[in-house]
């Protein structure tokens, strides 16, 4: 298997890389409030501001996981509080199905989650990030089997071994 980033895959140095989609009207403000209150939460999270959780196309989630993130979190307003009134209800249905789908094709449940966090819930934001990061840390790096797939060239030159179990299996430690 090709090892692309030595540092990222060695266990002591590995830090989970997590992408969080945050709704502009609630979670993003909640994160801001957490900052204002000097709350501490893991720096593994990268916030990506979206206008609504309904804007999060499930394909972004898959793309993030396949291009190097170890976990993806989607945060939006509590049902009933959507700035656009219904966006998060659609997002909820979509992501409920998509989460099951990801698990069905073999992803650990810890790697993708959705949380409703309002603009005033700074503490909840902190706790969610902590919990999620711990979950991802526990299952370890999402290695090449998912993120950097072998290409057709690898088949020709024998870089990829089909019989080998996918690497994300033994990512327990760290």
């Amino acid at each position, binding site marked *: 298997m090709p090892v692309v980033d030595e540092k990222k895959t060695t266990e002591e140095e590995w830090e989970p890389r997590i992408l969080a989609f945050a709704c502009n009207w609630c979670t993003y403000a909640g994160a801001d409030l957490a900052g204002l209150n000097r709350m501490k939460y893991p720096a593994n999270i990268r916030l990506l501001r979206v206008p609504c959780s309904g804007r999060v196309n499930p394909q972004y989630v898959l793309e993030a996981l396949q291009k190097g993130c170890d976990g993806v979190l989607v945060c939006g307003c509590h*049902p009933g509080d959507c700035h656009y009134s219904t966006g998060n209800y*659609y997002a909820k249905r979509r992501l409920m*199905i998509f989460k099951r*789908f990801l698990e069905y*094709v*073999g992803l650990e449940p810890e790697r993708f989650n959705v*949380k409703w966090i309002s603009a005033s819930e700074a503490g909840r934001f902190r706790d969610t990030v902590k919990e999620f990061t711990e979950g991802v840390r526990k299952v370890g790096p999402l290695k090449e089997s998912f993120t950097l*797939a072998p290409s057709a060239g690898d088949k020709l030159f024998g870089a990829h071994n089909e019989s080998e179990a996918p690497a994300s299996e033994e990512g327990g430690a760290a």
Partner: protein
Amino acid sequence: MSDITTTLRERARALMEDGTIAAFIGWEAGRFERQTTPLICLDAADTDRLIFDEYCVNTTAKYVRDLKQRGRIGVAVRGCDSRAINRMIEDNQFKREDVYLLGIPCPQMNDRKTGTVLNKCQDCAHRNPVTYDELLGEAMEETAPQDRYARAHLVSGLDRIARQNIFNMAFERCIRCYACRDVCPCCTCRTCFVDQRNVGWLGKQDNLSENRFYGMIRAFHISDRCIECGECERACPMDLPLMAINKKLVEDMNTLFGEYESGMTTDNEDALRSFSKTDLEEFE
């Protein structure tokens, strides 16, 4: 079977001659034994080439989209074809009055090579057309499969690593011919997301992540509309277990958001196109 062929030819010819329809979609004998190919009749003489036997494996409804500007289109429909027509009407591809449907109760189709009933036909719960203008032959007794989601249950019972292996190996096999998309009656976008991906760059790499991206997102795009016809899996030259994916999505939506069956009517309330305030809350 041959009597269906005869009535089919007669009716198609009559409809073409009296100007009811501008074209007729059916099947004709292929170049090999036990093989058929879709036939589009553009004038009455063509209708003599129509046949119907247990090797008419193609679901032809999607051709209506290519022909609709010619006028009203006649289609020979079995259960799956008729549900595909319903689906496309609901997706605003054409209107019910744009098609004239000759319904055929389906004797189930066979695999050309093995002579056994096709997987998609084994799973079929609607052999009789659900919508038609004329029914040729007697309606069949339906033989619903024991477990609607059997193809998904085969996989969902396995542990995570096994599932990951199955799908990694499957997606690695995919050659991105897009046959599954091209035959699917739900895949009617003029420009598919996958054709817009990194255009001019390395958008169409044949590797596991790109193939998985395509396979999963295509399945997800049509997930709430999938009529479970199994045509994608039949068309796939690389034998990907596509129905294991589609059935899984349909099963989840049925259990979470209420029972439905896409394609039975033209006013199905698609699960991802609607919501209910009483939906299960699992992200609290």
